[in-house]
């Protein structure tokens, strides 16, 4: 059975996890000053924002506020886009790719703003085709997450280490969560919906565990 309270709680917990992760994800950018690592905190920041909006949009009823639902849908998609471009540009450190990264980031921000504005300013579009938009957007999200999973798996295979397998596993869980939501969007299977929420929480918990292991655990170890 669909329970809006459980969904709201899961959205709030996911948002909290994302904002904690943001603290860790910004460190590579702060240390290196490289713009191409900015996509990591932006991605997790947007994911957190999308969960906050989701919590508000889906708090009351099964039929959420459509404009808010659109905003959370788009912000989540752009979160995955930010992550994809970060992984794509992380292999290309040349001066030329820095310009390409700046252009890509600007284009993503313009596209995000434009899509949210269109969804709000043209409410007919938002109300009539939300269900269809949800399906297309989730397919796009799955493609993004497959790319990131393959990228992180390749890095792991190059230099196998038991600690580097967790992140691709986390992204695979996020992708499976999107796939479950796609099934839910098509045939309203409540099992798929609940499974998606559990998989998402598991993925975020893995990211948090890896971050904690790297920064806090090694800090305790070095102080001993």
């Amino acid at each position: 059975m669909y329970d809006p309270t459980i969904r709201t709680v899961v959205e709030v917990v996911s948002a909290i996890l994302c904002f904690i992760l943001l603290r860790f994800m910004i460190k590579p950018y702060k240390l290196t000053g490289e713009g191409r690592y900015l996509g990591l905190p932006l991605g997790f920041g947007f994911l957190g924002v999308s969960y906050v909006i989701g919590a508000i949009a889906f708090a009351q009823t099964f039929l959420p506020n459509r404009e808010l639902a659109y905003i959370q849908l788009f912000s989540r998609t752009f979160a995955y886009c930010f992550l994809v471009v970060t992984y794509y540009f992380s292999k290309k450190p040349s001066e030329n790719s820095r310009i390409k990264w700046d252009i890509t980031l600007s284009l993503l921000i313009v596209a995000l703003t434009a899509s949210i504005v269109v969804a709000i300013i043209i409410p007919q579009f938002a109300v009539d085709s939300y269900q269809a938009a949800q399906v297309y957007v989730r397919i796009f999200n799955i493609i993004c997450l497959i790319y990131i999973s393959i990228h992180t798996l390749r890095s792991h295979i190059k230099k196998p280490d038991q600690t580097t397998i967790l992140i691709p596993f986390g992204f695979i869980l996020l992708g499976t969560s999107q796939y479950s939501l796609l099934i839910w969007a098509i045939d309203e299977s409540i099992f798929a919906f609940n499974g998606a929420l559990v998989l998402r929480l598991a993925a975020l918990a893995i990211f948090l565990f890896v971050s904690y292991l790297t920064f806090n655990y090694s800090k305790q170890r070095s102080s001993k």
Partner: protein
Amino acid sequence: MKKISRRDKLKIYGDLLMILNDQSKTEKIILTQVQVRMGVPFDRLKNYILELAELGMIEEETSLKLTEKGKQYLSEYAKVLDFMKRMGLAYQ
């Protein structure tokens, strides 16, 4: 001459501190060995060492050694590199 940007220097400082720290554990630091591991011309290496000393990250007593500030920077640098490796991100 190509100007070295801030981000490149951060990596150079991190790598240099890592090498200096490695060498100080086993033997007296020999700059020519550091130069070989860093892969930079000797005069540039001397400049980096001077800059690190000005920043208070290394000091010279009988031999070069990392200060507390240098050790802290190196520890944070190593953690972030480790995190990036775990996240599947390359830092070249």
